[in-house]
């Protein structure tokens, strides 16, 4: 009889997957509403506030808006232009949405449940679809790099100049910022000694020191890089509306456009999850949640609530930044990735490695408390020194004026003479 049913483990996984997929889709829809509300608030106007229950006058602050939007976009024509590469054009949105959903197989969305005592189901049940996956962090990275591929293919298959440029820019950006992202992450992995995201949260809860305090430089690098990976302003060059219309999804309409937009929001949610889990302590909060794996129902709920609140706070911060900052130019974007974020990330990695390497010796010599404070102080010193050095080596303002050169092919000489003329001018003034 029980032979015909999937095992309790598989059933539990199916339930979790169902909750996650449903929850994420709903969250993406309602975050669009939240974003529009915040935009309206920032710009001092009214946001969407009309759509409520149909055929009545009840408007419910516009809470029906996401449903109406979704219904509208599903009823739109599912249109494939003549000039596109059909296979790639159709595959791109499917690949990108499937990849950005499946990322969550390795991302925990809470702590653990109290013992359920179901036969065949080992207790405690974690809030994680694949607790046995040993390389959770790498799974997240692998799938986000597949998302790059969806963008690139979508842009190329569209056979449209805006789409092509958008796809190219987008993939170059995503690829460039994956390195700082990985460097920020490597510091956390080093400190926690595990590639599992739930183990990383547990390590922070046990020590009570969140990694944003112990690795400020890594936090900065990771935070900026995840903005870029989520393609949020100031890094939204892939679809800079004023220059590229819709970027890589210019030629897409209807449901396929929806898939692209949903996966963009999922990327933002993923980024928020990762920031909170790796640097902001996950479900841990001092004095409210315990740190052990034996917990009560109240604690389980509290942990889930705290994790969700932190994630929401990070997402709201994402949205506020979007409506407060102008967009980078592409050369500034690349400068930031390669000349600022990459060296800072490397500095963070070496600092963290050294701190972790010598911590036992210092604990022996100075005692646990002093060594603990030292392990926090040293990275902060490196943080400020690194910040100042990066500012000196790579000034944020860059000259976009044309480079003058006698021989138009000799750009190097042009730069030299340009600088020379500048100094001479400054002298004659």
């Amino acid at each position, binding site marked *: 009889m029980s032979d015909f049913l999937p095992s309790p483990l598989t059933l539990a996984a199916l339930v979790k997957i169902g909750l996650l997929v449903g929850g994420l889709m709903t969250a993406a829809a309602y975050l669009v509403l939240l974003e529009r509300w915040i935009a309206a608030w920032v710009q001092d106007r009214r946001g969407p506030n009309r759509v409520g229950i149909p055929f009545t006058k009840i408007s419910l602050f516009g809470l029906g808006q996401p449903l109406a939007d979704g219904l509208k976009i599903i009823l739109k024509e599912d249109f494939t232009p003549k000039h596109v590469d059909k296979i790639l054009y159709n595959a791109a949105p499917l690949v990108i949405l499937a990849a950005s959903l499946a990322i969550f197989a390795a991302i925990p969305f809470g702590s653990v449940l109290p013992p359920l005592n179901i036969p065949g189901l080992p207790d405690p049940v974690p809030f994680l679809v*694949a607790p*046995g996956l040993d390389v959770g962090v790498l799974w997240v990275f692998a799938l986000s790099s597949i998302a790059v591929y969806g963008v690139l293919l979508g842009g190329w298959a569209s056979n449209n100049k805006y789409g092509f440029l958008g796809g190219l820019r987008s993939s170059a950006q995503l690829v460039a910022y994956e390195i700082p992202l*990985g460097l920020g992450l490597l510091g956390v992995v080093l400190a926690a000694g595990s590639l599992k995201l739930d183990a990383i949260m547990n390590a922070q809860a046990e020590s009570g020191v969140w990694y944003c305090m112990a690795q400020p430089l890594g936090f900065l690098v990771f935070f900026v890089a995840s903005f870029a990976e989520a393609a949020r302003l100031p890094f939204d060059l892939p679809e800079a509306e004023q220059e590229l219309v819709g970027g890589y999804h210019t030629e897409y309409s209807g449901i396929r456009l929806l898939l692209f937009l949903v996966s963009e929001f999922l990327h933002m949610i993923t980024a928020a999850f990762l920031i909170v889990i790796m640097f902001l302590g996950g479900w841990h909060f001092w004095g409210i949640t315990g740190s052990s794996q034996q917990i009560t129902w109240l604690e389980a709920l509290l942990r889930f609530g705290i994790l969700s609140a932190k994630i929401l706070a990070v997402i709201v911060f994402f949205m506020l930044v979007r409506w407060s900052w102008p967009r980078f130019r592409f050369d500034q974007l690349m400068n930031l990735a390669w000349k600022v974020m990459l060296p800072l990330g490397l500095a963070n990695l070496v600092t963290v490695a050294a701190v972790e390497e010598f911590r036992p010796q210092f604990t022996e010599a100075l005692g646990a408390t002093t060594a603990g404070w030292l392990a926090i102080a040293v990275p902060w010193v490196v943080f400020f020194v690194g910040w100042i050095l990066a500012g000196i080596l790579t000034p944020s303002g860059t000259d976009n004026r044309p480079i003058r050169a006698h021989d138009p092919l000799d750009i190097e000489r042009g730069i030299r003479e340009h600088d020379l003329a500048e100094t001479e001018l400054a002298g004659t003034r």
Partner: protein
Amino acid sequence: MAASRREVLSLRLFFVTDFVTNFTKSVSAADFHWKRSMEAILPVLLFVAIAAAVSVGLVFAAGLIGPNRASAVKEMPYESGMDPVHDTRRRFDVRFHLVAITFLVFDVELLFLYPWAVASRSPAGIDAAVSEGLVSCRGLVFAGALLFISLVVVGFAYDWRKGVFRWR
């Protein structure tokens, strides 16, 4: 010897036979390792399958519901309302290729560093190896990892000097 050799060949001339005999066999306790890896991987595969099904299902459903009226103008590439000019498949700047190359280098570097990062602090990691006498001290391992990082940093500095990252 020869007979057993032929037997071996006929047995696994092709995996299909192996597969058929395996197909209906239930997973026994002896297959502990495979069962363990299945337990770890099955939820992931299920998630991937469901994610793919959701995206395909959405497109399929919308294709059934929505209208379908093509027109000549609608099928033109969108170029801000103008008639399209030139071919889209143009060559572009080699710097994008450079970004991809440098990305790949650092991606590989990171992936080689992950195992070191994990082993560095985990209980069964380097500390255990030191106490078992596999390596004389932690410092040697740390130096090995630093050497790995610094070689790539040298390359990075060289590229910076040579203007690989200059975009203007």
